[in-house]
């Protein structure tokens, strides 16, 4: 039995039929062709399938596509503005924060949320935020550097300890 899902993906309203067992990750990749959504573990652990759902990060492998009916989804394809990289993506490029690129879409989603909620994170906060993402290539240091470079310049605010150290 297929169900119809209507949602807004990267600013565009889409409608597609899918089985209830279809995860959001597979829906985005196979039904909508958004192959920037990467699938590693299908159990929430690796972070590569992370997207923004109504503005908040979510593992798209741990959601059913039928659950997002009426919601707004942003994938890595929606982060660039008409093909122009955003500041975070530009920082990833200039800091060599990717090699194979498998982890990058998920890293970008999480870093986007982090910098929106906490524009001046400490390095410890950046590392905690990224701890839910596995990267098999970079050794992480360049990714941390890129997020730092994309953050608001200035001293991190000591106040809000958003992520535990």
């Amino acid at each position, binding site marked *: *039995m297929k*169900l119809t899902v209507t949602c807004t993906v990267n600013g565009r309203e889409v409608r597609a039929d899918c*089985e*209830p*067992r279809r*995860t959001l990750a*597979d829906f985005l990749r196979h039904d909508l062709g958004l192959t920037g959504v990467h699938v590693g573990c*299908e*159990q*929430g*652990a690796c*972070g590569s399938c*992370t997207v923004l*759902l109504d503005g*908040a*990060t*979510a*593992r798209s*492998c*741990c*959601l*059913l596509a*039928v*659950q997002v009916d009426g919601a707004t989804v942003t994938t890595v394809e929606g982060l660039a503005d008409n093909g122009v990289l955003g500041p975070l993506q530009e920082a990833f490029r200039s800091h060599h924060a990717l090699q194979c690129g498998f982890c990058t879409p998920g890293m970008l*989603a*999480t870093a986007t*949320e*982090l910098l929106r909620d906490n524009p001046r994170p400490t390095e410890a906060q950046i*590392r*905690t*935020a990224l*701890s*839910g993402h596995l990267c098999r290539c970079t050794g992480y240091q360049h990714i941390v550097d890129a997020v730092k470079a994309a953050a608001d310049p200035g001293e991190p605010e000591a106040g809000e300890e958003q*992520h*535990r150290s």
Partner: protein
Amino acid sequence: MKAAPFAYVRAAGVGEAVAALSEGALVLAGGQSLVPLLNMRLVRPHTVMDVNRLDLAHLHRSGADLVLGALTRHRQVETSPLVRRDVPLLAAAMSHVGYVAVRNRGTTGGSIAHADPAAELPAVCVALDASFTVQGARGRREIPAGEFFLGPHRTALAADELLVETRVPVPPVGSGHGVAELSRRANDLAVVAVVACVAVSEGTVTYARIAVAGAAPTPIRATVAESVLLGRTPSADVIASAADAVADATDPSDDLRAPAAYRREMAVVLTRRALRQAVTS
């Protein structure tokens, strides 16, 4: 892997949800435990019932209790000014649950019903004597946290009952709290975790709550350790003897994450750390 086929229903009300449960549907809340299990075909329900549109995301104070609807998200609880003020232990413990992306979706009801022996929230509920309101076809009942967790992923919740809300008694004003855990990867599910809440008045301990996760088939309350603290000055020696008393309360088993002896030893070490945080916070 991909999930086996199932039918999907979206519950519009608690009554409707309970009726679907009687017919064998499985509840889908945040999906952070259930969808991986579906993907790996470790569960194969004929029907999945999505409860996300039920009106159960309430979070408020009612008399001496903090009330959490079953659909409050971990992130909502972690960042709520009310929770941070009234039950800061709960907010602190939630910050250890997975990653922000997991906490954005995962629900308190789901974490409690899932009853992972190493999960933080069930341990906090046991420590603070929380109670759960559940609704079945025959009506509502309250289950104290101490009687709810029966074993790994086993609870007193009947298959046709929905967890509706959690009531957490607010600890005394001015009490301190501590959360100490051992995990393989920052924010991953703990191997062992200890949560503690302590109130000190005129130099002596007047309230002490300690619970350990990951060192027995269910979260356990360390009552003997609590009684070691009560009425005493929380010096390093007193904290150390309270922590030592935790070992006997544990009932760990060997598994691929850690041998039993290591879990028992870590329960003691982490209790010491959690108590130190609690008396200095």
